[in-house]
């Protein structure tokens, strides 16, 4: 097999995303299982040197492609076109990217441009009989499927927090590569960038999430949720009910029409665990719930449920955590 490519995604501050380091770590493991296939990172952007350097800490070789257009245009479609051109020139078999918004945009457009299939939202990937096999959680986690490519080549998108990023034993090299020629797809200008109203820690790849649901009772109740998150070094998440009530922004919503997360710890405060929320968090390693209702659905899949008032238990927990760290 002619190689696995890792698409290195560039964050808003110009650095490599953590998700890309996870994808790179996974790609190395798959390559080893396939008998030493070459792994190459590809970073495409207006200033690719720094993120390419970071990615080289994880894979033996990185192609850094300068594409000025992405500085002030929506990047996904542009990156996909450059990747498609590079694929034609270099002939890799597999492209792996993150299953976040940019990775999905890139994967979708790249798939259409190349005709390659997509193994979407892989939670694990292994190399078997010469090609990758991806594990997915589908239908909101009710089913685990494993799938592969029918024709050998394809694109894999990887869910955040599927692996712990581990740098390679020795740093790789960065090579400048060019992908020029006119962009065939329309470019979409970014006319303004707006900061989020509230600077909440991102839940996408958080190791610890403290989530509040309807039981939190109001925006003030989220103060306690935030304090618990701060004490645990985590991020604040929420159910759709809390978001719909305007207590917390949509960016923090976990579930079917929000984000799907896989933290080490999910502390659910006043969260009933309805199916639409469960699909977004059930793969968390440890789930602890605090709820008044012993019959809440979350009691069926939490590791521990504390039956009680979330303000009382939350404050007691806060005191306990602070005593411990103090």
């Amino acid at each position: 097999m002619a190689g696995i490519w890792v698409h290195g995604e560039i964050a808003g501050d110009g650095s490599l995303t953590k998700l890309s380091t996870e994808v790179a770590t996974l790609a190395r493991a798959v390559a080893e299982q396939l008998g030493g296939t070459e792994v190459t990172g590809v970073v495409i952007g207006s200033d690719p040197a720094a993120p390419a350097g970071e990615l080289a800490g994880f894979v033996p070789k990185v192609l850094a492609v300068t594409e000025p257009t992405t500085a002030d245009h929506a990047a996904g479609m542009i990156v996909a076109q450059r990747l498609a051109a590079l694929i034609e020139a270099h002939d890799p078999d597999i492209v792996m990217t993150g299953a976040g918004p940019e990775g999905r945009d890139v994967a979708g457009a790249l798939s259409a441009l190349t005709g390659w299939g997509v193994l979407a939202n892989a939670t694990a990937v292994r190399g078997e009989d010469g090609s990758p096999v991806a594990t997915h959680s589908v239908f909101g986690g009710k089913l685990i499927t494993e799938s592969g490519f029918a024709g050998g080549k394809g694109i894999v998108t990887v869910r955040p927090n599927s692996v712990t990023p581990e740098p390679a034993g020795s740093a790789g090299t960065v090579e400048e590569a060019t992908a020029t020629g006119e962009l065939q797809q329309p470019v979409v200008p970014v006319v303004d960038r707006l900061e989020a109203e509230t600077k909440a820690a991102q839940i996408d790849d958080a190791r610890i999430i403290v989530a509040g649901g309807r039981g939190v009772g109001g925006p003030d109740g989220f103060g306690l949720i935030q304090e618990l998150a701060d004490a645990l070094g985590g991020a604040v998440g929420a159910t759709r009910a809390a978001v719909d009530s305007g207590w917390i922004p949509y960016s923090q919503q976990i579930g079917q029409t929000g984000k799907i997360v896989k933290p080490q710890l999910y502390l659910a405060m006043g969260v009933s665990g309805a199916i639409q929320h469960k699909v977004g968090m059930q793969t968390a390693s440890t789930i602890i719930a605090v709820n008044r209702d012993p019959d809440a659905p979350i009691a069926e899949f939490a590791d521990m449920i504390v039956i009680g008032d979330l303000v009382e238990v939350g404050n007691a927990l806060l005191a306990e955590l602070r005593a411990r760290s103090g």
Partner: protein
Amino acid sequence: MRIVVLTKPVPDPASGGERLLPDGRLDRANSPAVVNGNDEYVLEKALKLIEAAGDGEVILLTMAPDSAPETMRKALAMGATRGVLVTDPQIAGSDTVATTRVLAAALKTLEFDLVFAGVDTSDGTAGVVAPGVAALNGLPYLSYAASIDPDEGARTVRVKRITADGYDVLEAPMPALISGTQALGEPRYPSLKGIMAARSKEITTVSLADLDIDPGSVGLDGATTKVVDSRRPEARGATTVVREAPDEAARQIVALLAERRLI
């Protein structure tokens, strides 16, 4: 203004009956279909825009088995003008590549100013079909919309795209394809009047032959990916139920966190 909304019937996430047939396709008989959740948000936005404009059409475009009209009626009851259903015995088992190709071809037969799609569907959650359709048809692509503001006079559309740090405000000429999120706003419930009206709304059926698509390139025969195994997830361990007073309960939580090296 004309807005096409890509809508997909998906197994009801609340049904719990989803399972695969031996060939890897969804066993549709075992789970009732509903309109995909994210599609309802963009449909609601399309309806609001047409209402604000005073005239226009919201056209549903669906690729699905021939049982889909039942699900499409619910979206028509919300207020969509008419539906176009691409259905063919050969499309069963189509992967995202084939779905993208079929929807892109069907879209070429329609006149529109904007195309809306949900950012993903609750069944496969790949989120790759909308960008693929945009790429195949050369449409400006604006994704993860929290707001959509068309300017009919200027023939442009502005979208607030959700990013990790906030929003990117994107602007493109129409026609354009936009994928949207729940942040667009709560979908309406169909009114009784809407439900009655939906019964007589037109759903046009289109076949692969109508779109000049080789049946061998779609469905299970044309699939670029294959499911090799499917199983129920391993059950989580037993749940520890703590009924002690808050102070003692908090100590037990901390003990578990310490045991699992989370603090």
